[in-house]
């Protein structure tokens, strides 16, 4: 039994929507081991984005305990959350979320900039990450000069640049055709094989099945396995 990367216990999140209270997350208990590859599936509005934000330390739970890589997250201040995001988490988004005015390599450097890494070392590490996703020749291109699949690979390189403990991928193939989706999934699987913990959020069963473990979410409640 490997040690747990993520432990969630009794996590709750409520929203007030038009006078009625919506339980976006309703008493979530979840443990994800180090080196796991977990997919979280659920229809839209099921609360999977909220769960993702919670895991990614972008949001704070109303109640419950959240431990990430051995440190308690639920009581941290904004500033400490920013540091956790910077050092422990790598985000991969559906629409890539690259900065359009920066070149590929500059985008990959971003997490290192906020960590205060010196510019020379930054560039070396960013190039290494681009090499890992096979895009070292496109380093000087702007995102607009890259295809969707390439942009997502740059985004993955950016997520890897900070050497995070966990990769959080929110519908990473949602904006890609099936062939490039395959490529991205293969890349993620490869990263997982090398020991990286990956949490994948999707509504696509086909994509979800690439993960080693699947968890379903519906109306803010979590269930083990596929329940769509």
């Amino acid at each position: 039994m490997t040690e747990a990367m993520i432990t969630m216990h009794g996590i709750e999140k409520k929203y007030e929507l038009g006078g009625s209270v919506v339980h976006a997350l309703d008493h979530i208990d979840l443990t994800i081991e180090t080196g796991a590859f977990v997919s979280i599936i659920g229809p839209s509005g099921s609360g999977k984005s909220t769960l993702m934000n919670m895991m990614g330390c972008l949001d704070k739970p109303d109640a419950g305990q959240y431990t990430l890589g051995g440190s308690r997250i639920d009581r941290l201040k904004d500033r400490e959350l920013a540091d956790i995001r910077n050092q422990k988490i790598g985000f991969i988004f559906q629409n890539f979320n690259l900065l359009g005015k920066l070149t590929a390599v500059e985008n990959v450097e971003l997490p290192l900039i906020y960590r205060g890494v010196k510019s020379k070392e930054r560039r070396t590490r960013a190039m290494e990450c681009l090499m890992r996703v096979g895009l070292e020749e496109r380093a000087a291109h702007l995102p607009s000069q890259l295809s969707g699949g390439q942009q997502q690979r740059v985004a993955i390189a950016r997520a890897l640049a900070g050497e995070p403990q966990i990769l959080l991928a929110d519908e990473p193939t949602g904006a890609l055709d099936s062939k490039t989706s395959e490529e991205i999934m293969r890349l993620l699987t490869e990263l997982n094989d090398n020991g990286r913990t990956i949490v994948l959020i999707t509504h696509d069963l086909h994509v979800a099945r690439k993960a080693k473990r699947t968890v379903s979410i519906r109306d803010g409640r979590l269930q083990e396995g596929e329940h769509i």
Partner: protein
Amino acid sequence: MNFFTSIKMAIRNIQGNKLRSFLTMLGIIIGVSSVIALLAIGQGSSKSVSDSVNSLGTNLITVTITNTDTHFTKSNLNEVKETSGVKSVAPILSGRETLVNGSNSSESSITGTTSSYLSIRKLSVKEGRFVTSIDEQFRQKVVVLGSDLADTLFENQSAVNKYVLIDGQRYLVVGVLNSKGGSMGQSSDDSAFIPFSTAQRLMKTTYLTQFYAQANNQNSVNWAMAGIKRVLSQTYSDSDDYSVVNQQDVMDAMSSVTSTMTLLLAGIAGISLLVGGIGIMNIMLVSVTERTREIGIRKAIGARRRDIMLQFLIEAAVLSMLGGIIGVGIGFAASEIYAAATGGTVVYSFPIMTAAFLFSALVGIIFGVFPAYKASKLNPIEALRNE
């Protein structure tokens, strides 16, 4: 995040929006350049005025009689001359007459005075001589011409020992003065000088309305002025009937005008910089809204609030400082163009340039704080959802 990286990032963003950045900077550019140009021109002209006032010497006292009922005569003047502290006096009887030499003529100011005028006004003779006491005594029809006037009437020839017609009468030119320049419509270069007694006859008056007195030295100016006032008060009961002014008074009046003007200019400049600052704030707010998604991405990647705030603040500061630098350049160029076009003097004040530049930077930072704060407060989840 490191400061230098922030600056590089800000410059890249400004480069990415050249036209907009330029328009934003325009307010600051206009503000800073107008401060520098207006002050350079203002200080230049006040310097040239004070230079010409100074060139008359600080010992000079100007007395003007404003009461026309009780006449001030030559004998009164002699009393003034005996006052302790007064070295010499020169009466002034001035009018405008047409001077004619053949086909050349010029309407000029004519001053009737005595020989002491030359040293009191610190003038010097280029050719010939000035009016003398013998001319005065015998009401000689002699004239001394200012350098410009001599050029006008005699062109390239020597004027000395030739005749000019004044009011139909022949006057012998006995001397030509060196050019001195002047200000406030009192240039000796355009004037003609004749003996006082001759002028009385020409202008048909017997009394004086103005004279110059020279104090023994700079320290006795006030002493001499008090003496002159005492003599005048024997003739005139009301102190409003005459004025006794020394060059220091003139300088003081001038410098109070200059400092008022400087204050006014600083006020105008301050307002235009304020307007420029509001322009910067406006654009930065637009920029924050436009770049909501970028802010979301940066926050998700680990930018702290402080990093985001610093990024926008530095951008505003760089924008306004760039505007300040361009403004200093344009202000400098505008003053040079003014000096070249009008021949006026311009004086550059380095502290004012520095202050204008620093003020522009300060404006950028102050007006950048609110948009930067707004950016840093954005919720990353909301910001990422933004299209």
